[in-house]
């Protein structure tokens, strides 16, 4: 583990504890004004106040909780739908497999962000709609890769052996396909979390969370734009938090991928 990866891990662990402990750590209610509007960062309010006089530090802390949870919800939805569809396709095979592949490809004909926007348009704006939309629009891509991973497992001999011994389809799916594909699925899910995080914060940035007072990083970044020149910290802080989180997830997933790659594949570049 190099310094960069250690830093990424520390940042994510810190965020995780902040997300859990936000009510204990936050000095003020993130939705109630504590003083005059647009106070610069200083002794009164650690990171200043926003245009409605609310404490930015408390909003950032609660923002970690809401942003990370929203992305987690979307990622879990996409992962479980994708794994279920991939597993179904590979263990049933035949027409069902073709149907899953066709449906996934059809959904992928619309770019991810547009599909998510479309789903929000159907569901009506709001944070639950954003989570649902990002999760659903991420599922087809996940299903396609998950299917490939399950196929790789099925091609190995022991699945044929189990079937020959009379193992039922559900048994093969849950006892052979799922456990043997799970390390790769886990790495895929980690990458997908970054995608979900970008997706949810982008949609909330576009104002689709509905509630403008929501202490969520994307919504805060959007709200801060109104006072960009007089109070730049209002948008820079949540923006920086979003960027650092994305970079940290990318760094860690690259590290995980390198760990799981056989050593023979990572020859020195000079060759």
């Amino acid at each position, binding site marked *: 583990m190099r310094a960069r990866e250690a830093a990424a891990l520390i940042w994510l662990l810190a965020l995780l504890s902040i997300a859990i402990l936000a009510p204990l750590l936050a000095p003020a209610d993130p939705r109630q004004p504590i003083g005059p509007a647009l106070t610069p960062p200083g002794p009164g309010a650690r990171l200043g106040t926003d245009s409605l006089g609310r404490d930015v530090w408390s909003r950032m802390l609660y923002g970690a909780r809401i942003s990370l949870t929203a992305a987690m919800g979307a990622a879990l939805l996409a992962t479980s739908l994708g794994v279920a569809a991939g597993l179904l396709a590979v263990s049933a095979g035949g027409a069902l497999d073709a149907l899953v592949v066709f449906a996934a490809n059809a959904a992928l*004909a*619309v770019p991810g962000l547009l599909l998510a*926007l479309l*789903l929000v348009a159907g569901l009506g704006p709001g944070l639950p709609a954003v989570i649902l939309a990002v999760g659903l629009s991420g599922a087809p891509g996940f299903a396609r890769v998950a299917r490939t991973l399950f196929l790789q497992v099925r091609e190995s001999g022991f699945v044929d052996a189990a079937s020959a011994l009379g193992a039922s389809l559900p048994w093969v799916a849950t006892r052979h396909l799922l456990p043997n594909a799970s390390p790769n699925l886990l790495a895929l899910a980690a990458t997908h979390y970054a995608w979900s995080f970008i997706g949810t914060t982008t949609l909330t940035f*576009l*104002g689709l969370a509905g509630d403008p007072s929501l202490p969520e990083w994307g919504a805060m970044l959007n709200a801060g734009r109104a006072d960009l020149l007089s109070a730049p910290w209002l948008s820079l802080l949540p923006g920086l938090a*979003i960027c650092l989180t994305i970079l940290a997830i990318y760094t860690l997933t690259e590290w995980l991928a390198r760990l799981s790659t056989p050593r023979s594949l990572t020859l020195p570049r000079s060759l």
Partner: protein
Amino acid sequence: MVPAPGRPAPGALSALIIRCLHGLLTAWAAVTVTFFGLRVGAGDPLAGILAQGLASPQQAEALRHSLGLDRPLPAQYLSFLTGLLRGDLGRSLYTGLPVLRVIGGQLPSTLALGASGLLVAVVGGLALGTLAAWRKRSLWGRSAASAAALATALPVSFTGIVAILAFSTLLSGRAASSLYALRHLALPALVLGIASAGAIGRVVEAGLSQSLASPYVAAARARGVPSGLRLLWHALRPALPPAVSLIALEAAYLFSGTVVTETVFSRPGLGRLLIGAILQGDYPVAQGVVALAALFYTLSHILADLVSLGLDPRLRGKG
């Protein structure tokens, strides 16, 4: 068998036809996903209008009938498809204007942003990738590689805000209004383009590193070909096909980028039209914008396929 020189390979035409048919199928899928995606959660497309008190229940009922919303879903889908073929996307619920005209009004602004963003992406990507591969060991090369990686990772919403801040701080007060064009086209295009430039740069870097290490570049060096020519002619040319097909794909992704960029820079365009329509519940407009964007996306996929077929003869036989 060696194909006769100057004649297309036997598989080329059938490969072309297969790609075009596949493209048509994808376009149909995209339009279908648009239609049903919009209706996945919606109980009532007019709920927004009713909630805002813009229409009485009787008026809403009449509107529902005139929009055909009281007909079964398959019938609505069919009339959406036939309307699309005739170029009729319905009317906006709010202004009553035809959706195609509303879109046409916003299209030039988004096209200008997208085209200049693509220019930034291509020039920036080529420059970053070439620098990173050619000067791999130097500080310049390493910073170009990290810049490319960073550019792909950072969201447009953040880079846009940093760009606005930097621009206003550097040029505070001084002739800010005479730089209107810079603020309203160059800056958004730069922000939009850099995100794609990173991805293009990484592909160029990977291809160029490979070809720079290849025997034919070493042979060119042994023949005494000057280093600049060696880089541009011998090494860069074989590295280009994957970059070119990526550029066509990035052109499609740029539309998603313009949605965010237009919001960051408060710039009119299709992206803002779409967001506004979603927030208002103006479903014909939202549906029209996404359907057109999805068709554009499909078209650039086909274009990317055709370009790579043209550039890389090895693909032609495979269909």
